[in-house]
């Protein structure tokens, strides 16, 4: 949280039209995650689409009853996304080239520097020391900028609630498990250890080790290691990421990097504009009484009517 507090401090001071501008722009986009943050390595080559993770998530997070049973595999006919009723979904992707279809679990990737968090104007999101991106529904206003900002289209919103609609997304089972050092429910139920739980730094090593040991099984890319400044959930795959619905065009910069050019400009405007325009005013009205006087002047003019 330190960094966020730092940003906060900088912007507050910026809003007060004072110092702190250069340091803020330096800080933006340089956060690489907490050292002891946990993560999940998703080895999509192991996934057979049993949907147990979906069931476990549903029970753990006390989500509403699903539309179809969790062992109904007809859901793979279409591509699904996370919803207010499902924090995680598994999709099937045709890999082509005579390869078997690939399955990929989809949930919040718990970015190191999350777009949702940086876009939230009430600071409802928190990146915990353990690596989870959690959400405080009590202060959420419901602007849904986080949903716009999420490059993975993860947060859902309980639109159907008239009086307490909130954002619904995977929270890494933070309150019930991660906080106590336990893996999330989906990891625990996964029969084939598609999901490996561990320190993010270790998982990166393990992933590259797997690629090195069985190069035929994987393409040489760990999605999420660098993407968007790094995510806590990372993906190994037999096919290029875009074949399993992972956007490769997101780049390695966190979302906030795109915004920093504007944020960097804010304190400048706040400090320079008043002087600049007051100066313009003095110039434009220099040949007569300036300031408040000119109003009385124009009033007199008007008054002649």
């Amino acid at each position, binding site marked *: 949280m330190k960094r966020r507090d730092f*940003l*906060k401090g900088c*912007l*507050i001071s910026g*809003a007060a039209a004072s110092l702190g501008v250069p340091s803020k722009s330096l800080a933006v986009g340089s956060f690489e995650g907490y050292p002891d943050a946990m993560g999940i390595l998703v080895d999509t080559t192991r996934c057979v689409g049993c949907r147990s993770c979906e069931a476990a998530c549903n029970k753990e997070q006390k989500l509403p009853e699903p539309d179809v049973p969790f062992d109904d595999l007809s859901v793979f006919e279409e591509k699904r*996304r996370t*919803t207010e009723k499902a924090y995680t979904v598994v999709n099937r992707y045709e890999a082509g080239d005579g390869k078997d279809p690939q399955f990929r679990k989809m949930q919040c990737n718990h970015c190191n520097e999350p*777009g949702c968090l940086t*876009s939230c*104007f*009430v*600071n*409802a999101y928190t990146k915990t020391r353990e690596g989870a991106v959690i959400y405080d529904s009590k*202060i*959420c*206003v*419901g*602007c*849904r*900028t986080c949903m*716009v*900002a999420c*490059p993975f*289209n993860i947060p*859902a919103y309980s*639109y*159907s609630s008239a*009086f*307490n*609609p*909130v954002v619904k997304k995977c929270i890494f089972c933070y309150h019930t498990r991660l906080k106590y050092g336990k893996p999330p429910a989906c990891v625990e139920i996964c029969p084939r250890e598609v999901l490996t739980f561990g320190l993010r730094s270790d998982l990166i090593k393990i992933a590259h080790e797997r690629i090195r040991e069985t190069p035929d099984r994987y393409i040489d890319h760990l999605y999420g290691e660098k993407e968007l400044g790094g995510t806590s959930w990372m993906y190994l795959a037999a096919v290029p990421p875009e074949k399993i619905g992972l*956007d490769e*065009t997101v*780049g390695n910069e966190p*979302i*906030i990097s*795109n*915004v920093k*050019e*504007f*944020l960097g*400009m*804010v304190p400048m*405007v706040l400090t320079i*504009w*008043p002087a600049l*325009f*007051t100066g*313009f*005013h003095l110039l*434009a009205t220099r*040949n007569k009484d300036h*300031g*408040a006087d000119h109003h*009385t002047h124009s009033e007199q*003019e*008007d*008054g*002649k*009517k």
Partner: protein
Amino acid sequence: MNKLIASGATVVDSPQKSSGRNWTIMEKLFLGLSFQQYIAQAIRNPFNWVFGIIFAIGIPIIIGRFIFGLSWVTHSSYDYPWGLFLGFGLFGMVPLSSSGFQLGTACEVFGRHDLEPIERLGLLNGLLGYFFAVIFLLCDLGQPWRLPYPMVLAYGPAAVLFLVAWHVATYLSVQIAEVSVSFFEWIGLPIGIRAIRKITLGMTVSGIILSTLHQGALGALFTYAPGKVHPLWYSSSFQWIHFFVSSIPGGLCMVIVVSTIASKTMSWRFDERFKDSLDRITISLAKGASMGLATYLVIKLISIAHDNKWGYFLTGYGHWYLVEIMIGVIIPMALLAYSIHHKKVAIIRFGALLVVLGIFLNRLNTAYITFNWKLPYREIPHWREVAICITVYSIYIVVYRFILYRLPIFYQWKAAEELAPAYVAETETRHQRRAPEELALAYAAKAENDQ
């Protein structure tokens, strides 16, 4: 109204009736007409019937939205979290409301007194635009009653929206103060006018700051979604500049459009000063708008070149982009250039309308039509969502009209002491008619002398 005035009815434009007695508030509200006259003219107006039908359908839907929730009026899309309320309502309304700070700046900071007759319209247009943008926001927010949270409870100062919230809130207060001068005149509170006069320059300068920032900030909001906004409408470096610069012609043209509509529908409310200066002011505003448009076009092209996005022009989205640029920028630029040169005010007004539509199209494209261009489906709004948008815009128009009918926006409030010698006022008015122009000329001459 015209008929009534022709038949001898007087409309309120001063604190006192011709008989020397002060107007009561009720009389002021009824424009100085009798209750029967007022109702009769309202019923005669066909627009009121249209609005009546819209409200009969739309207002229950708005109430329903707050009872049954957003899922009742929208498709509850997770992929398009911002629907028409923001894409069409808020993002369309705010740039068209930049007139407040522009005319404020021109008149108060740069001393362009030739624009003064329309300054109040600019300010009011700004205020109402922002106010109804907030109304749209309230319709869209999941928990609108928590809107004050970013001000009082929880701060997310690294978020662009945080800046927008603060700036819009502050700027709305500033604009209320600016417009309240007219209100104080109308209601008869000279002390209020004096108080506002004292802080006008400060408010105007803060208006510039706040406007620059949050017009830009609305654009910067989209830099959170680099993968979702279509590359032609997206630019990490230029997004906020695009939104800010396009709001300049947007606001000016909106003032032209509103004054045009007013001159067609409520010219009885214009005083001589406004009537006489409107064409001249329209041309001045159009000059400003064409400068803005030219800048906007250049920056648009630079941003395309900067990220080398020319290839997208070959796609369907590229063609759509060109349509937007043609309607909103290039055609109006040509029209404005031609008509400014030949002083053809009618064409200017048409060009201004195109600019306004172009702004709407641009914001709608950015936030809605081309948003999520990588997704395989396009979102079609729910009919209730459309109905709410139309209703809110109708309320906007009705409130706009209500204020224009009453407050001294198009006319100058006659102070009590000037009224007493009626003949003086009359002769003075004739004499005064060209005064603003003369004033401008005088300033120009002075400026030259000084150099």
